[in-house]
């Protein structure tokens, strides 16, 4: 069975705001009768203040659809419409302490029902831009449609390209066969044969959101550097939280960064991999060789040199040399 958070279970067993809302002035229906996925959100908006005074839902859905809908109604009650529209599906998932990657679409449905209900209240037509495909990468919750569109938009050719642009495939690598199939299909549309041995054209990873907020690497003071490391870890945090874990910066000692893995990440089989991923990201962002080590190894004079697991690639030789010289 799904590993639902306590919060999801609690909202499932005791859903808030269930049923029709007799004096609703905005109703949003999303889903489809054909596939049985369905959510109706009813809202009562105060026309003077544009504040949502009441919200209820009805759903033909799985446990997380019920919990997501319940959470959504709780979040938006009392909010002005414009504030409510800013609620993202990630906000819904966060409110529930995370959803399994396969179930994120339940929170997407919630957000879309809200947009539809608001459009209905305002008397405008809501156009759905929603298209979701089969889930390909479980590590990063990326579906086939997202991968296809990214391949087309950026002329991607290899699994590595796809990982750089969408993150899909950048974790455990179990989905690489699936990504190759998508590549084969999309490239065939353009008359190109997928070549599994092609070399990735992407040397530099796509600038990640964090890069926009931080200045490129230059000479940083110690405080700036630590601040920046924290910012980078913060940017990874939502992914860790999605798996029910977290990571906390403990100490920076030259190129060695000690972290505390907490929650589901601590001691789970994926911890080594997760640390590998964090290390990779820090190296990319800081442009120097970094070694990330669990804080519990801090006492040991010679900690485990490099974390194990697929994510823990060795740094290129130049980087290692740079680190020592």
């Amino acid at each position, binding site marked *: 069975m799904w590993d639902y958070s306590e919060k999801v279970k609690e909202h499932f067993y005791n859903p808030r705001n269930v049923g029709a809302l007799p004096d609703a002035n905005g109703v949003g*229906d999303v889903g*489809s009768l054909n596939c*049985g996925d369905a959510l*109706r959100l009813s809202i009562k908006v105060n026309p003077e203040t544009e504040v949502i005074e009441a919200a209820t839902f009805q759903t033909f859905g799985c*446990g997380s659809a019920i919990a997501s809908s319940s959470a959504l109604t709780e979040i938006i009650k009392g909010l002005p419409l414009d504030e409510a529209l800013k609620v993202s599906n990630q906000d819904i998932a966060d409110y529930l302490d995370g959803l399994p990657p396969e179930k994120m679409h339940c929170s997407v449905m919630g957000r879309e029902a809200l947009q539809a209900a608001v459009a209905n209240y305002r008397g405008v037509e809501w156009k759905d831009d929603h298209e979701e495909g089969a889930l390909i990468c479980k590590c990063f919750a990326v579906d086939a449609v997202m991968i296809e569109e990214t391949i087309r938009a950026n002329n991607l050719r290899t699994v590595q390209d796809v990982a750089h642009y969408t993150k899909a495939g950048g974790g455990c690598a179990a989905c690489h066969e699936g990504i190759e199939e998508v590549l084969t299909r999309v490239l065939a549309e353009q008359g190109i044969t997928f070549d599994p041995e092609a070399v990735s054209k992407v040397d530099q990873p796509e600038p990640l959101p964090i890069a926009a907020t931080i200045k490129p690497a230059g000479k940083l003071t110690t405080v700036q550097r630590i601040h920046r490391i924290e910012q980078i870890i913060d940017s990874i945090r939502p992914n860790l939280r999605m798996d029910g874990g977290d990571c906390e910066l403990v100490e920076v000692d030259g190129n060695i960064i000690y972290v505390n893995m907490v929650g589901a990440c601590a001691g789970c089989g994926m911890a080594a991999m997760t640390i590998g991923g964090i290390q990779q990201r820090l190296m990319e962002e800081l442009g120097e060789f970094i070694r990330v080590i669990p804080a519990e190894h801090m006492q040991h004079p010679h900690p485990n040199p490099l974390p194990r697991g697929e994510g823990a690639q060795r740094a290129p030789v130049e980087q290692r040399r740079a680190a020592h010289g």
Partner: protein
Amino acid sequence: MADIYLDNNATTACDAKVVEAMLPYFLEQFGNPSSMHSFGSGVGRALSKARKQVQALLGAEHDSEIIFTSCGTESDNTAILSALKCFPNRKEIITTAVEHPAVLALCTQLEKEGYTIHRLAVDGKGRLDLDEYKKLLTPNVAIVSVMWANNETGTLFPVLEMAELAHAADIQFHTDAVQAVGKVPIDLKNSNIDMLSVSGHKLHAPKGIGVLYLKRGVRFRPLFRGGHQERGRRAGTENAASVIGLGQACELAQEHIECENVQVKALRDRLEQGILAQVPNCFVTGDADHRLPNTCNIAFEYIEGESILMLLNKQGIAASSGSACTSGSLEPSHVMRAMGIPYTAAHGTIRFSLSRYNTQAEIDRVVAAVPPIIADLRKMSPYWGENGPVEEPGKAFAPVYA
């Protein structure tokens, strides 16, 4: 109150006698049966006893027709891939639309590699059309693979007759009997079945042990090559303890086959009738007159299976659902889709699968628990009104995207 386990088509508890038979083979008799010393020879004898126990349950003519594998999935894959190797010029496979993924996913892959897969359709009750089947039996077909009993609905397929037809057309016939073994009497020596798959964990043996029955003289190519184990047809040191456990489980299954078809069946019927009598808008899926004695699959309209399971689980009742809300959107099982069950019902299918360990008191508790759960969930459904489905659900709920 103890929990109630009604998910025996997913897996079963090991019988205590099975565990007892296995235990000495971990600490004391740990030898390799191929070894030339006393540590090995005792194990070798125990393995041949197990082989005979399996042979007896399957009604196989020779004990050398029993090949131990790691699971039902391995047996299925071995059988199909063997036929393709044996008959490289035959590029077609006949199977059904409702097989287990152990067969279907392999066939989908083979299709990508250029094979033609004929997936026999089923009708609303999950039954095959044998005329359609007969037309497909041409010399281009390498193998027919048809399950004996469906894991979701329990529906039985006429595999003996289908094997005969395949035999007459000179085509190998394989059946995935993972759900049937121990519940349906099987007499392979008087059949035209060439290969048959068994999985231990469905009949109170451990997980990770299976059997491929291979009729003597049927052309075969192994999946694994290596040592001479299983007469070179499945290399790899034997999973001795599990093989011995499976042997014991087969002996017990033979002793209990009548119990399965009388007592267990009576409990299943009591459960089914109890629920149908109390819950509106629900129905049994599959071929109710030709199905496994332990399985009952009920579609509850206008609600979703996972929610039902979670509420059952809260009351200590374990069952399973044909709805998998996994990716993109809700996906009803391929078996329900093949039968043409409407989506509003297919999502609410719940499979109750019993074993000889279930009691009448347990069944009565489930019959009492189900109706309020269904009623509560329907209160949340946009397709359900005060006392029944809303009129014209398609109109009452008209979502923006389809």
